[in-house]
């Protein structure tokens, strides 16, 4: 349901731009409407899949953090707790549940303790506890299924888990940092591109006014093409950066494009 809600506004914007573009190209209303509706369905499919993949990848990052938190806390508690059950109890007693990963880790450990002590599944297991990363899932399943583990092996297991989760967490963190650094750069590039498109179309409009009337309709075609291009690059840039396509970015780019066209001097060129 969430995916539908997130995909719908984008599909509506894309379809309306596409309809405008087709209508300016052919001036056949019914053909434009039919083609736009058909395209809307396919674009909806694409957006829905993209949003699903973004959600999946972001869940993976949280899962790596969960594993990392669990392994680090367990490693720290190894000195005082020497069997798996008491180690899990110690990890569960982490005082503050500030982040999403910390909350998730606490819920998972609580579920494991329920299974190990009460031999029963926890009833209030929410969907937020569901792990997306197969490796994290495997690590927790392994811990859940271990009935007996001696002190030396427990130490080795926790150390290995910590090493493993450290490299995973580091990779995910590096990728997130890289995306965050690039984000600003590409936002500026998006705005610059929208401005350039606006400037090109404005110049063309100015030339068109002084020449034949046919050029004005051509200018409208180019303007709607530019609007459609802005929609495509804004939406897909967000997807590459593992963010949900933002309507705010889209509105900003559209606004800049339109402002550059409408901005004085009107008698320019």
């Amino acid at each position, binding site marked *: 349901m969430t995916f539908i809600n997130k995909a719908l506004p984008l599909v509506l914007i894309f379809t309306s731009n596409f309809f405008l*573009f087709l209508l300016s190209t052919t001036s*056949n209303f019914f053909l434009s409407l039919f*083609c736009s509706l058909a395209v809307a369905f396919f674009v909806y499919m694409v957006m829905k*899949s993209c949003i699903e993949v973004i959600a999946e*990848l972001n869940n993976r990052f949280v899962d790596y953090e969960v594993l990392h938190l669990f392994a680090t806390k367990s490693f720290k508690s190894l000195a005082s707790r020497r069997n798996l059950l008491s180690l899990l109890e110690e990890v569960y007693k982490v005082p503050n549940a500030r982040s999403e990963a910390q909350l998730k880790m606490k819920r998972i450990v609580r579920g494991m303790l329920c299974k190990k002590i009460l031999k029963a599944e926890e009833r209030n297991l929410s969907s937020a506890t569901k792990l997306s990363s197969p490796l994290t899932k495997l690590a927790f399943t392994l811990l859940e299924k271990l009935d007996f583990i001696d002190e030396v092996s427990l130490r080795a297991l926790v150390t290995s888990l910590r090493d493993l989760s450290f490299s995973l967490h580091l990779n995910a963190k590096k990728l997130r940092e890289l995306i965050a650094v*690039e984000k600003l750069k590409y936002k500026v590039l998006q705005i610059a591109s929208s401005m350039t498109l606006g400037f*090109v179309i404005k110049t063309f409009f100015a030339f068109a006014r002084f020449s034949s009337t046919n050029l004005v309709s051509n200018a409208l075609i180019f303007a709607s*093409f530019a609007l459609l291009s802005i929609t495509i690059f804004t939406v*897909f840039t967000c997807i590459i950066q593992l963010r949900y396509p933002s309507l705010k970015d889209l509105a900003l780019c559209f606004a800049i494009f339109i402002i550059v066209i409408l901005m004085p001097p009107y008698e320019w060129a």
Partner: protein
Amino acid sequence: MSSEFAVILSSALIAMFSVLFVRQLRELEKRSFVTEPNPLLFKLIPMMHHTYRNRVSSFIALTRLDNACRVLPQQLRLLARKLSLGRDVEPATFNLLFLNVGLSDPLVQDEWKANDLLFREAMKDLRKKLFTTNVRNIITLALTGIIIAPVIVTISALFHQKEAIELLPIVTSLFYGIALQVIIVVLKRYALILV
């Protein structure tokens, strides 16, 4: 080419690119995010060594874990079956990595030596795949290309208006298709560092 024909063709192209993209995405999700052997998974091997001490049982214990995890590479499952059940695995299905590390007959060979070789090979593979990923360059190329392309297309189309206007719907659909393919390339790179 009439404008009606160009409009229909561009819609058909967008539909085709969308279907292709969704199929590629499903394939990528199925292979890279869930079942395909990811080099980082081989880090599990030393972890199981520590846990179970006995090296053969570490593989077998891995295969007895929840099947829904679907995390084990097929080769590891086959190796575990071969080690636990004897020689009932067909040699034809037993290929790839293990043949390279001298595990043609693991029951005869020294298990410790075989596992060390396996681990070393896996680590080599891990290093090769992870450090040649080059995510930054791919993102830079992909994003810059997607953002700059419309400006170049618009300017060049303005110089040849008559021909360009008829072709513009097709150019739009091609731009859409290329953007989708670029997304797939970047997601494939992301998949390399995810397990």
